[in-house]
């Protein structure tokens, strides 16, 4: 029997809607000592590029209030080492394995995907076209719908595997980019990547991360993420994977209500590697309490006829 938490994202099914977000779960193998990956619907690897990237100079992280600003700059081992050293461990992991790909130019996305096609145990790709921390490519791809569409289309031609395009929130409107990714052939969309943010040390008058601005994540961006997911949901018909500041089961429910078919958990994993297991349990409990048969019933179920009001029973 299928679990109540089972979700289908187009052609790919997941045993739980909780997916570990790119950059927050390494290459998928580091956390297995401390948290069983089977509790995850799946994970998305750190974004992989054609060659090894050294990333940005330190400091790369700064905690601000409830949130985090990072400027890792996509430091990663490159596709070659990934295919040789990491991917062979994937078939043993009982969860969905999505490889994130990030490059400077379109051709490189094609090359990296072509190289990844050689590896077994990969369930799909997430095209990171939304990183705010690199000078070339990165978020600029996702800020231009025409580029988004072409990039997805090109990768689509290279693989039969499932493709998800990861969108930036750093645009006036996410709808055109979402539609473009769908038109290009994406099986699903994920959003949001981090929000451009900045922190300053007033004492030294220096930026708190080396690249001056970076990507803001964690609970403070949740309201922004919910708005973007809702806007994307209303623009496309492919499934959406929502993320941004998720720490609790009710956050997950909220993202699903506004249109996410599944979610990713990012920054919160650093503090609580076992969070997915906890969320699964709590979600099942919620479904029981509310008498909901499948989590998927929630997707896009936002009632817009009127708003929740103070003191009005819900």
């Amino acid at each position, binding site marked *: 029997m299928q679990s109540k938490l089972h979700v289908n994202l187009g052609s790919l099914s997941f045993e739980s809607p909780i997916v570990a977000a790119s950059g927050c779960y390494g290459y998928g193998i580091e956390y297995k000592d401390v948290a069983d990956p089977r509790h995850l619907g799946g994970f998305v690897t750190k974004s992989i590029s054609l060659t090894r990237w050294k990333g940005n100079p330190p400091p790369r992280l700064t905690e601000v209030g409830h949130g985090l600003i990072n400027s890792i700059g996509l430091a990663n081992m490159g596709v070659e080492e990934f295919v040789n050293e990491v991917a062979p461990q994937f078939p043993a992991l009982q969860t969905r394995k999505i490889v994130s790909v990030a490059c400077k130019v379109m051709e490189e996305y094609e090359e990296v995907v072509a190289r990844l096609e050689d590896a077994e145990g990969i369930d799909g790709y997430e095209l990171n076209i939304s990183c705010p921390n690199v000078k070339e490519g990165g978020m600029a791809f996702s800020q231009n719908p025409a580029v988004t569409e072409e990039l997805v289309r090109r990768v689509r031609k290279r693989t039969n595997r499932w493709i998800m395009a990861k969108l930036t929130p750093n645009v006036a409107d996410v709808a055109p980019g979402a539609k473009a990714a769908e038109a290009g052939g994406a099986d699903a969309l994920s959003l949001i990547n981090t929000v451009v943010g900045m922190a300053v040390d007033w004492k030294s008058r220096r930026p708190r991360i080396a690249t001056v601005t970076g990507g803001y994540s964690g609970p403070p961006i949740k309201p922004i993420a919910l708005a973007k997911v809702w806007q994307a949901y209303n623009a496309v018909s492919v499934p959406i994977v929502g993320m941004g500041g998720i720490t609790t089961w009710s956050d997950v429910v909220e993202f699903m209500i506004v249109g996410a078919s599944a979610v990713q958990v990012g920054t919160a994993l650093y503090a609580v*590697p076992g969070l997915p297991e906890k969320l699964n349990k709590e979600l099942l409990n919620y479904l029981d309490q509310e008498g909901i048969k499948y989590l998927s019933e929630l997707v896009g179920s936002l009632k817009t006829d009127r708003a929740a009001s103070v003191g009005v029973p819900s």
Partner: protein
Amino acid sequence: MKVLETGRITRIQEIRPGIFSLWASAPEICSLAVPGQFVHVRIKDQFLPLLRRPLSIGRVEENQLELVWRVVGEGTRLLGQLGAGDDIDLLGPLGHGFTIPDDAEQFLLIGGGLGMPPMVYLYNHLTMRGRKATLFLGVRGRDDIPLSDDDPILSQARIVAENGEGFRKGLVTEPVNELLDELATKSTLTNTALYSCGPWGLIGALQRTIPQQSLLLTEVSLEQQMGCGIGVCQGCAVEAEGGPTPYRLVCSDGPVFDLFSVEVPGAK
């Protein structure tokens, strides 16, 4: 091997104004830890603070480990509000500890302020095994000593205080270099291993004053803002030689690095 373990606090004390020592029982971590490793601490079951806080493992005695910290912000403040019987969520032991060469005959350990706890752990580790270790501690003044007045280590450490206050006055690098000179005359310098943990200022000073080539080993433990603590987020990079890129990760490549492989921020 690293584990997630709930540590039960057995003792917690403000040993100096704003400096706390905590003992917690954490059998698994204690059985795995070596000097120089650290734990990543979740203070409360809530996401404010958002991230864990990295703290060096101080002493380890049977099932118990010690953490010593200075209150600098919200995380360390909240940690100081816990009491005996409370639980803390520990991820550890993390990182690589100090290298202890079999052929070393002299060990020089230099703690700078709150860099002392791992030096104390290493010192106990070495002396319990009958090795000859000298422990230095550099502080601004008495209030900065991360050891309580009744701590047996206090009398064994050579304390140097910038303000004097009854201790040798000056910088800790001075007696260290005196001892190194002495060892050089006895030509035992090449059998000497030097370790340090402290602020970047101390690391810079050591780089400038230590005779790099002559020592058997020179290791320092570094600090950097951390996310995951286990090599996943790539957030804790420092400029250091020895890896495939100009950067190395404090949490997983370190926190212990060769003194001369690291680039002190802003030194250039």
